[in-house]
C-alpha cells in the first residue's frame, strides 16, 4: 500500500487555506484509513448521496460551533434571570429564541447549574456524547480512555488534574451522558463580577467550565 506523504498536495482540496485551517499532518493515520475516506467520499458523491458542497457546508457548520457560543449563552444566563430560568426549564426553545440557533434535528439538551452547594461535571463513559451544537467538537481528553474511565470513580482526583479544587462541603454530581440527552453546565459566576456586562463575563467562561472540569476564570 502506498504511504500517503503528508507533503503531497496533488489533491486540490488539500490546498485551500480556508479559515478553518485543518491540520494536514496525516503521518499518524493508517494509510488504509486515508484511502478509505477518499474512496467512500468519491463514490457517495458520484452516486448523489451527498455532494462535495454538502461536505464542505457540514464542515463549516461544525466549525462554526465553538465554546465562544457557549460562553455567550452562559454570560446571558448570569445576567438575565428570565433567560436563565427558561434555559434550565427547556434549553432548546430558550436558545432558539434568544440566540436564533437552529437546533432542529439535534439531540436534546439539558442545562445544569452549578451552585455554591453543588458542582456538576459531565462525561460520556460509553462514547463521546457532548453538546456539540453548542460547544463544537469535544476536546481530545474528553474522548480519552483516561477521562472516561476515571471521572465516574474518582471525580475529585480528576478535577484536581484540571487544577480544580472544590470546597470539601460542595457536593459533586458526575453526569454520564449515556443516552439521548446532552448536558451543558452553567458554571458558578465568579465573585467580583457584579455589574459586568455580558461581553466581559463571557471572557471568563471557558470550555472546560461548561463541561464542569474547571470553574469559570477569576476576574
Amino acid at each position: 500500500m502506498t504511504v500517503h506523504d503528508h507533503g503531497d498536495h496533488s489533491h486540490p482540496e488539500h490546498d485551500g487555506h480556508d479559515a478553518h485551517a485543518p491540520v494536514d499532518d496525516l503521518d499518524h493515520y493508517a494509510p488504509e484509513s486515508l484511502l478509505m475516506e477518499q474512496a467512500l467520499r468519491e463514490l457517495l458523491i458520484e452516486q448523489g448521496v451527498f455532494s462535495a458542497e454538502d461536505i464542505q457546508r457540514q464542515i463549516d457548520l461544525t466549525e462554526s460551533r465553538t465554546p465562544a457560543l457557549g460562553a455567550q449563552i452562559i454570560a446571558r444566563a448570569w445576567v438575565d434571570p428570565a433567560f436563565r430560568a427558561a434555559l434550565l426549564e427547556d434549553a432548546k426553545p430558550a436558545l432558539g429564541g434568544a440566540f436564533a440557533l437552529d437546533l432542529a434535528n439535534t439531540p436534546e439538551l439539558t442545562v445544569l447549574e452549578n451552585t455554591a452547594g453543588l458542582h456538576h461535571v459531565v462525561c460520556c463513559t460509553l462514547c463521546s456524547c457532548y453538546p456539540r451544537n453548542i460547544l463544537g467538537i469535544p476536546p481530545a481528553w474528553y474522548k480519552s480512555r483516561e477521562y472516561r474511565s476515571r471521572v465516574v470513580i474518582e471525580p475529585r482526583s480528576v478535577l484536581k488534574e484540571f487544577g480544580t479544587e472544590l470546597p470539601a462541603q460542595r457536593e459533586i454530581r458526575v453526569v454520564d451522558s449515556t443516552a439521548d440527552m446532552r448536558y451543558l453546565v452553567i458554571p458558578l459566576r465568579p465573585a467580583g463580577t457584579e455589574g459586568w456586562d455580558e461581553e466581559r463575563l463571557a471572557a471568563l467562561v471557558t470550555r472546560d467550565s461548561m463541561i464542569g472540569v474547571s470553574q469559570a476564570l477569576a476576574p
Partner: protein
Amino acid sequence: MSGASSLAAGVPVRVRTGEPQTHCRTPHYLRGKRGVVLRALGRYPNPEELAYHKPGMPPLTLYQVEFDAAEVWGERLHEGPYRIVADIFEHWLEPSVQPAVPGHEQGASHDRA
C-alpha cells in the same frame, strides 16, 4: 417493565443486570445498582433496535437516575461521597424495595428548586 413509563421523581429503582450481546446504552458499572429517579426525560426510540436499522418503536421512556457513589463502587470507592447521574431507559429499570443507601434521604431534595 409495565408501568415503568410513569416512574415519578424520587422513586427508588434498580438497574437490571444482564450482558446483552448487542449494542446498549446502559453502562456496565451501573448494572444491578440502586438509584433514585430524578425525572423522566421523554420518550425515544429504543437504541438497541436503532443500532440494527430497526425503527425502535414504540418509543421508551428515558429516565435520569441518580446513584450514590458508595452504592456504585462499594469497596472500590476511595474518595469522599458524591453522586452519579445517568440516563437509563425504562426497560433497564426495575423497582427497588430498599432505598439505595439506608437512611439516606430519598429524592431530589438537593435538585434545583
